[in-house]
């Protein structure tokens, strides 16, 4: 069995309560950090661990903490990004509802490290019951003296606030999240200034994902070096993967980074293989926004090496033959899935979720969705395919926040790898629009 850091105790009955969590060794990391360490030492451990942001971008967390400006007399904030809304990603939800104290413990340690006296957990509004679980857990921790004034007699104060969002995907972008947290419309801000300099209420702010922060208790208990030994190269530690789609056992799995994609997909410990009688067609490895991969590029890279579940291996070959680990939303498609329909569906999502601030994203996402809708419903023409590629190129990289990229990549990659399927939809509109019809051309070759 692989090592578990986040989900080790997740199945213990009653782990959502303070008492059971404490019995399983909970809050010892807070005691260790606050009583025996300085904030700088905690930051140092985070840097040593090499833990990378688990929200999707994969930026090293310790380094992000290092960028935090520390002007005198200005408060600093830690904000936990629990606005997990990427289609295909549901790991934070699982973590927060099952073992809320892990996040709270991580928040206390991280806030202590950054010198924040008020920290926020911004949870997406649809997860109201998770918000109640978190609030209950915070009340318990407060009653036990782990939150509030003078934590464990150290003189360090911390107030933890759970803020429900309005349910907008864009508020998962860190600056849009901060705007929303301030009570404004959730529009991403222009950067610079970065949140580390001017974030929440124009004060230095760090925004971290739930999973990143939840790694902190283990890192403090076992040391950053021990964490760095798990995984391969710059992909250290473990990662929660939300597996969904046409597999035997969908669910949230904690893997050590470096497990091969083949093992993750086919071993009984994880996904358990493609559902019986079907075979693999495509894979989205890191949530809906990363490029889709066709079957021949999933377990092997273009160079013929085994593809591993690491940041580097998944992005091997760039976007031409690779993808990204992203937030770990592992969506598997067998041969019954229609790529055009799926791409249209993703595109519809981004059209709906664009904030409407920058012109390329506001107009481009809607345009792509309409063209894809047309192709899927048998009204496409050949030049629509190149039109889609062109629109996606014009959106990519030209917007304030990465939502534009996220909307462009799935479309561009689907056309790159499954162009014949798009062509078939256009040349055979009647067959393509028949109920349950799927293009089998490529599958015949496998």
């Amino acid at each position, binding site marked *: 069995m692989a090592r578990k850091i986040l989900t080790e105790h997740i199945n213990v009955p009653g782990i959502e309560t303070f008492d059971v969590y404490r019995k399983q060794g909970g809050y010892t990391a807070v005691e260790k950090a606050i009583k025996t360490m300085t904030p700088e030492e905690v930051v140092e451990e985070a840097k040593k661990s090499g833990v990378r942001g688990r929200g999707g971008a994969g930026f090293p967390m310790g380094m992000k903490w290092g960028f935090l400006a520390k002007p005198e007399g200005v408060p600093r904030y830690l904000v936990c990004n629990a606005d997990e809304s990427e289609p295909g990603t549901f790991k934070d939800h699982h973590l927060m509802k099952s073992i809320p104290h892990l996040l709270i413990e991580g928040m206390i340690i991280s806030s202590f490290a950054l010198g924040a006296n008020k920290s926020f957990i911004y949870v997406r509004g649809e997860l109201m019951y998770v918000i109640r679980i978190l609030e209950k857990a915070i009340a318990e921790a407060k009653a036990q003296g782990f939150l509030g004034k003078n934590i464990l007699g150290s003189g360090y104060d911390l107030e933890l606030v759970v803020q429900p969002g309005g349910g907008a995907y864009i508020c998962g972008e860190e600056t849009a999240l901060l705007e929303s947290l301030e009570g404004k419309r959730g529009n991403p801000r222009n950067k610079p200034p970065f949140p580390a300099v001017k974030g929440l209420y124009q004060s230095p702010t760090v925004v971290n994902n739930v999973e990143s922060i939840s790694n902190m208790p283990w890192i403090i208990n076992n040391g950053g070096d021990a964490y760095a030994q798990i995984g391969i190269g710059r992909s250290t530690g473990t990662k929660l993967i939300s597996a969904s789609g046409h597999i035997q056992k969908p669910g949230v799995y904690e893997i050590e980074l470096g497990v091969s994609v083949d093992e993750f997909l086919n071993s009984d410990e994880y996904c358990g293989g493609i559902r019986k009688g079907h075979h693999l067609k495509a894979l989205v490895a890191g949530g809906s926004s990363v490029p889709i991969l066709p079957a021949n590029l999933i377990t092997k890279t273009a160079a013929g090496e085994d593809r591993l579940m690491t940041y580097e291996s998944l992005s091997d070959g760039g976007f031409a033959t690779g993808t990204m680990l992203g937030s770990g939303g592992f969506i598997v498609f067998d041969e019954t899935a229609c790529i055009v329909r799926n791409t249209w569906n993703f595109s519809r999502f981004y059209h709906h979720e664009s*904030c409407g601030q*920058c012109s390329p994203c*506001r*107009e481009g996402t809607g345009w792509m969705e309409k063209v894809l809708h047309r192709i899927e419903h048998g009204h496409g023409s050949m030049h629509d395919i190149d039109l889609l590629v062109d629109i996606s190129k014009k959106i990519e990289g030209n917007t304030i926040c990465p939502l534009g990229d996220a909307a462009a990549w799935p479309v561009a990659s689907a056309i790159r790898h499954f162009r014949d399927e798009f062509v078939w939809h256009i040349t055979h509109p009647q067959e393509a629009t028949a109920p349950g019809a799927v293009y089998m051309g490529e599958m015949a070759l496998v």
Partner: protein
Amino acid sequence: MEEVKPQLLKITFDGIEVEVEPGTTIMQAARKIAEADESQGHLVPPAMCYYKPLPVSGGKCRACLVKVTAGSAKDPRPMPKLVPSCITQVQDGMVVENTTNEAVLDTRKSIVEFLLINHPLDCPICDQAGECHLQDFAFEHGSVKTRYEEERRTFDKIDIGPHVQLHMTRCILCYRCVYTADQITDGRVHGVMNRGDASEISTYIEKAIDNDFSGNVIDVCPVGALTDKTFRFKNRVWFSKPEDAHRDCDKCCGKVTLWYRGDEVIRVTARKNTWGEVNDFICNTCRFETKQTSSWVLEGPTKVKRSSVISANKYRKDLVKKPDFALKLAATQFKAIDDTRPYVTDEDTIRHQSIENNDKANHRSLAANNN
């Protein structure tokens, strides 16, 4: 004590060096070049959302994206993405490419396309036509054809207040009016609702904007989305003649432009600078209620660029300077005649060749139709 002057930063913009103060944006540096030498006006990136007098505006329309090929003297690496010139501050030794970079021009073309796909293109009946920034932008950077085949987004017209009409269908969501309403008046009732391409400028539950400076949203609007109800459908702007004037006003600066048709003042607006920006906002009394020449002290005709449509038919033909873009266009399209065919004078041969050519042309068009 001697005044300490800030260290000036040197930046190269399209090959032209200019020194600017720290904190200047790339756009301001480009404008500085153009202000020093009028013939360089075409170098300045277009701005659809950025409005200098309104802090925090900009960065949204992406029309002004430029390529930074060297970040600074200290770190001469190029910036990976195109950057919005209106909000990117210059660094010493920065090298910026605007009109000299293909990728920038290509992106700009696509921005026009994006802005126009949901725009009604009702210029023939739009009051803004002739002084519309989107028209200028599309004229200079856009394409003649559209690739958009779907239905365009439409909205109902909304009356916001007694003087202003909102025609959301024309809006390009630059947020200028939102910042104007926010920054020059108290009590926020005006903002953006909804999301993505469904987002719209609106007032709080269709509440009227009711304050003395509400009319300024009309001036800042780059398109015809916010129009002056006292002027709607009265006239085309290029038939009216602008005159600078002022009066003593207890609410605002009182510096305005009067727009004449004959002897009648048909419209009053704030004064706009070279970049189409209002520096001194005016009150509603001056704008909507003071339309007699007797109330104003005239200062003389407003200086309008000769290339502007507003100055059409008002100046002697021999003095009108052709706009730069036309000359540039002609220059780029100019091709030396490259005909290697033998020079023939025999009539039969010529007739035969022309029949042959016609046949070829017919075949080509047939083939194109069949595709």
